[in-house]
């Protein structure tokens, strides 16, 4: 397998193709002399697809193919599926129906293409008003809405995150209220003490 040099475009992996070595190794381009680290896998044939075994008498059969022996149960609906219908994503096994339903609902994190970081938006709203002070009045409902309506979102990202950004956003939003309260209350308490 010829891998082009990232600098000059000439074939970098001639030696890899010839001696069939695999694994990470440092190399230098024979043409431009630029160094690079490379990991090359031999172009082996992909593994052959699973074949569903024919069902024998008494064996559980696939929900979708009554002539095939069941090899797994769907992790979501529990239907028995054969090797042909078994869709594996990480540790989960899905039947085609559940797979399609979850794909439409966007519920499968392992298939999701994008996430919106609502907790980061709340954090910026909660602290960003300091730059333009009068936007505090807009930041307050924004942080309130995001931290309630999207409370669970950070845990459901493809790479789950903590919810500390919501807490920091609330600290930033409540800070001026605390300052105003302190300015009013401390002199009042001092007067009361006298």
């Amino acid at each position, binding site marked *: 397998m010829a*891998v082009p040099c990232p600098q000059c475009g000439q074939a970098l992996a001639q030696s890899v193709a010839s001696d069939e070595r695999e694994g990470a190794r440092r190399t230098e381009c024979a043409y431009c002399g630029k160094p690079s*680290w490379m990991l090359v896998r031999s172009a082996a044939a992909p593994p052959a697809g699973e074949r569903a075994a024919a069902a024998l008498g008494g064996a559980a059969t696939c929900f979708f193919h009554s002539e095939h022996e069941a090899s797994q149960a769907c992790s979501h609906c529990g239907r028995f599926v054969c090797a042909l219908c078994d869709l594996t994503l990480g*540790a989960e096994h899905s039947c085609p129906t559940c797979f399609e339903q979850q794909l439409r609902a966007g519920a499968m994190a392992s298939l999701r293409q994008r996430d919106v970081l609502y907790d980061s938006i709340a954090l910026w709203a909660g602290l960003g008003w300091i730059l333009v002070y009068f936007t505090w009045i807009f930041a307050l409902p924004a942080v309130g809405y995001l931290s309630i309506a999207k409370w669970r979102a950070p845990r459901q990202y*493809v790479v789950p995150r903590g919810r500390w950004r919501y807490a920091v956003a609330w600290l930033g939003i409540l800070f001026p209220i605390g300052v105003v309260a302190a300015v009013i209350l401390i002199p009042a308490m001092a007067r009361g003490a006298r």
Partner: protein
Amino acid sequence: MTRLSRAHRWLGPLTWYLADDHLLAADQVGFTVRYRRVFYADLRSVVIWPDQQLWVRLGIEALATLLPALILFLFPWHGPAKAWLGTGTLWMLADGARGPNATARIDSVHSAIQGPLAPRWRDAERILAAVEARLPRPALPPSAPAAPSAAVEVAQP
């Protein structure tokens, strides 16, 4: 899911994760993360090479250190200017000591991704070793039954 590396860019970080069966790139731009997956079974090659970003960044850091320091030196007290200059110099030294940046190209059966898989050139070996450890081993071809050794043959009556 294990975090492999994170490269900071102007618009947001690019973070790589090692999942059970794929390599996940989380590309954050603003408040949106886009995901790209390269399944280990489809991976063909990964090439990492050093690039020249470090010199550009060191130049920007030098400007960001010197210009405010020059302005601060116009004031009668020179303490803040010296502090700014010292901090900036230490920052540049630390950045330079970490070595050049690196770019990578990941080729799979279906697509190719180019981006900072290893943020620094010196991390390239470690990153590739971590990826290699996750790659599925190719199935060995069925071997012929081993021939009886000479010692066994001698022991036979």
